[in-house]
């Protein structure tokens, strides 16, 4: 049996915080120095105070003494910060301290008055026991709050983390729901893994600001990913949610213009325990900026005139507080929680300034009784709460019953009919471990679980209730997913899927071993045969790149060692070839060296002194040898065409091997010979040329001449019909034209 040890889900992962004294003013330096080193009768100069402070901080014994001497409520504050890994946001700290009774909400009459606060957090910050969070202790009561604080590393070891808080529901759920929905951890991983696979197939993809996916990329992903599950509460833009989670977990990296997958990070994720995976999902979800619960994909930009999303800092705070409530639920003996009751309790414990933002148009709009008729309620607590339930409450409902269910940490329940519908939820086993960490752990049997059935038709059934990460990712690599819903999912081994796995670096033995160890029924003989046959066929054709080919080597040479592939031909590593080339005095072909073809209009190709063997091999594909040179002819091009060589391919070779332009008439001929025949007319016509453009225009519009004309050839030139030539001559004479002009022809050089 193994037990996983997860971190507290809200704990900050950060380097050990150290106090900075550079920005201290003299008063603060004196106060902190007095606190850390005791009374001092010498100089109170700022620099000396800072020196005394630094000296005290270097002394581990002094840190223990300082912690031991703190009043209990100060130590309780430090214990809370320690529970959060040494760093906590101001909003969470305030809720924790209020819930534990360490601080109290200001009385109503104090809210609008200035008074000197005695607050443990502020005192600890002033004395540099906590870092950050310092502000003027004269504050307006109604806006009391903290900024983020952190605990210096040297103090952390002297403080035990605070115990967990529990959750008390104001009204219990008296019976189990009529229907429930939950997603197995393996299903969550399959979706993420398939999204990662689809991203990997894109190579690099374009991104908008903040790494958001452009619509074109989203559409491409949607085409290759399996259809949605049909769950009416499935998160909006589910593919974008999975994408943003992958990015937040470091499985994809981004720069300003593009994103790309880090496949090994996906592999690492898959190899974690299910609860560790879920913990990563939740921690990643807390940080998402371009996907929001109940809204979907949002741009990473804000618009003052038109809202594009909930302000990211408000969203982060709301998510933090919702998760904080769920950590308390995980430490309670509560089975099902009524959604509306939970939200009312959440409002009570997080206050008006807890979850606080404005949005409308969530994809799921549950109707809460406490929000009905909100605008008719009199001003006061109930009215504020009703408005909250109809906005922030609906966001929380979407986050809980849609996003969290999608992440596999919450199970959703529903009771009643259409009009009496009630929603409830509870944490899944994995959810309890995630939100209850580090105290709550789940036990499970170690080792590979048999979670597959391999069928003779090459279909593989994956049982999600028992599948683990490695099973999901390995199956995703070797088989194509055929169904995306249900507890049993279908995959299929195909020649293409196995080929892709082998090309991706898996060995046949790995595939066979995986199927044999994970299949409940072994591997059918015909499936095993298919696997080895597909692998054998792959080995039958090899495309080997990045080799050096040495050709025309002298007999008996031993300078270039490698694999002999033909007479005087050796395939060697680039290092061996480079060394051998020096020893033998052989040139290594380069593109510059190959640029030695000269081609004339007749299609004759002359080569330079050193003939590149790639150049010569290319010439042999479309030209004929002739007296030490090469000639491109209709016949040689016909042969090239039969070999599948196109004119574009030949022009590409010309670009590589020539430093001058291909004579245009030869280029035209090559295109003609390659099949793109250019049409031409060569015959006699009766030409009527009028040198005066006004007269030409007059004749063009004449009804008398029109019956004898075929049309116009160019400005000033008519083509006359053969039959109409006599009549046209007579008409032109009648009209006073002199028909003894010479035909004007432009020079070819003009």
């Amino acid at each position, binding site marked *: 049996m193994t037990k996983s040890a997860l971190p507290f889900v809200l704990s900050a992962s950060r380097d050990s915080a150290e106090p900075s004294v550079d920005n201290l003013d003299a008063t603060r330096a004196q106060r902190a120095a007095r606190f850390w080193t005791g009374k001092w009768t010498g100089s109170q100069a700022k620099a000396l105070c800072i020196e005394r402070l630094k000296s005290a901080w270097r002394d581990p014994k002094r840190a223990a003494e300082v912690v031991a001497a703190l009043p209990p409520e100060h130590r309780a504050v430090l214990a809370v910060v320690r529970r959060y890994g040494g760093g906590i946001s101001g909003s969470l700290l305030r809720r924790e301290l209020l819930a534990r009774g360490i601080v109290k909400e200001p009385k109503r009459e104090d809210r609008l008055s200035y008074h000197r606060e005695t607050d443990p957090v502020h005192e600890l910050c002033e004395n540099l026991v906590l870092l950050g969070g310092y502000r003027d202790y004269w504050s307006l009561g109604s806006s009391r709050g903290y900024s983020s604080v952190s605990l210096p590393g040297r103090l952390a070891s002297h403080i035990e983390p605070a115990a967990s808080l529990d959750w008390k529901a104001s009204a219990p759920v008296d019976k189990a729901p009529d229907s429930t929905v939950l997603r197995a951890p393996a299903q969550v991983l399959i979706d993420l893994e398939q999204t990662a696979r689809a991203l990997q197939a894109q190579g690099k993809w374009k991104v908008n600001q903040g790494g958001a996916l452009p619509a074109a990329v989203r559409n491409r992903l949607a085409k290759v990913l399996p259809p949605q599950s049909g769950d009416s509460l499935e998160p909006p833009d589910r593919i974008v949610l999975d994408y943003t989670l992958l990015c937040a977990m470091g499985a994809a990296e981004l720069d300003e213009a593009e994103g790309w997958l880090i496949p090994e990070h996906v592999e690492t994720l898959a190899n974690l325990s299910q609860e560790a995976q879920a913990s990563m999902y939740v921690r990643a979800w807390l940080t998402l900026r371009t996907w929001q619960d109940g809204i979907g994909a949002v741009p990473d930009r804000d618009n003052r005139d038109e809202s594009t999303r909930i302000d990211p800092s408000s969203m982060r705070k709301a998510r933090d507080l919702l998760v904080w409530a769920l950590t308390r639920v995980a430490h309670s003996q509560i089975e099902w929680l009524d959604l509306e009751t939970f939200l009312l309790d959440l409002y009570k414990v997080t206050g008006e300034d807890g979850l606080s933002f404005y949005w409308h148009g969530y994809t799921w709009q549950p109707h809460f009784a406490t929000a009905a008729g909100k605008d008719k309620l009199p001003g006061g607590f109930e009215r504020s709460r009703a408005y909250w339930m109809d906005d922030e409450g609906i966001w929380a409902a979407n986050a809980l019953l849609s996003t969290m269910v999608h992440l596999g940490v919450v199970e959703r329940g529903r009771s009643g009919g259409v009009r009496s519908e009630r929603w409830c939820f509870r944490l899944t086993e994995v959810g309890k471990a995630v939100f209850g960490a580090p105290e709550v752990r789940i036990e499970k049997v170690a080792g590979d679980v048999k979670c597959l059935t391999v069928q003779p038709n090459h279909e593989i059934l994956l049982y999600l209730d028992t599948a683990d990460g490695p099973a999901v990712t390995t199956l995703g690599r070797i088989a194509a997913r055929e169904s995306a819903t249900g507890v049993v999912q279908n995959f299929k081994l195909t020649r293409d899927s196995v080929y892709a796995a082998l090309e991706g670096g898996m060995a046949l033995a790995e595939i066979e071993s995986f199927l044999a160890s994970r299949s409940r029924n072994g591997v059918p003989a015909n499936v095993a045969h298919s696997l080895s046959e597909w692998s054998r066929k792959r080995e039958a054709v090899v495309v080997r790149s990045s*080799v*050096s080919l040495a050709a025309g080597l002298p007999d008996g040479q031993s300078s270039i060692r490698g694999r002999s592939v033909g007479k005087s031909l050796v395939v060697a*590593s*680039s290092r061996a070839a480079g060394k051998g080339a020096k020893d033998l005095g052989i040139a290594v072909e380069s593109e510059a060296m190959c640029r030695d073809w000269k081609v004339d209009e007749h299609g004759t190709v002359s080569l330079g002194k*050193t003939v590149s063997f790639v150049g010569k091999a290319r010439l042999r594909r479309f030209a004929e040898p002739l007296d030490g040179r090469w000639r491109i002819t209709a016949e040689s091009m016909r042969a090239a065409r039969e070999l599948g060589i196109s004119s574009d391919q030949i022009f590409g070779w010309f670009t590589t091997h020539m430093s001058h332009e291909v004579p245009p008439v030869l280029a035209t001929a090559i295109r003609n010979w390659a099949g793109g025949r250019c049409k031409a007319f060569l015959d006699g016509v009766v030409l009527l040329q009028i040198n005066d453009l006004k007269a030409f225009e007059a004749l063009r519009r004449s009804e008398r001449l029109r019956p004898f004309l075929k049309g116009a050839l160019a400005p000033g030139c008519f083509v006359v019909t053969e039959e109409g030539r006599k009549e046209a001559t007579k008409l032109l004479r009648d009209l006073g034209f002199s028909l003894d002009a010479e035909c004007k022809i432009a020079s070819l050089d003009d």
Partner: protein
Amino acid sequence: MTAAKHPLDRVLPLLEPDQPAILANAAILEVQDLAQLIEISRDPKIGRHLLARLSDTVALIDPGAEEELIKALRAAGHTPRTAKGGEP
């Protein structure tokens, strides 16, 4: 007597360098037997990316055309193994 013509002489002639030379960063196609090389090189969509025969089972790929060749092979139903470096 004249030497018997090789069945691939017209479609994929043997590489005949004029002098000793080394081609760096080259790509080659390896098959299991002559019949397979004949079949592959006679397919114009594949053969257009090959330059010369090195032996009955090895051909030189037109430099820069490896990806196109792999695509053409796959489109024709082959499942070529892709490898890098000189070792088999």
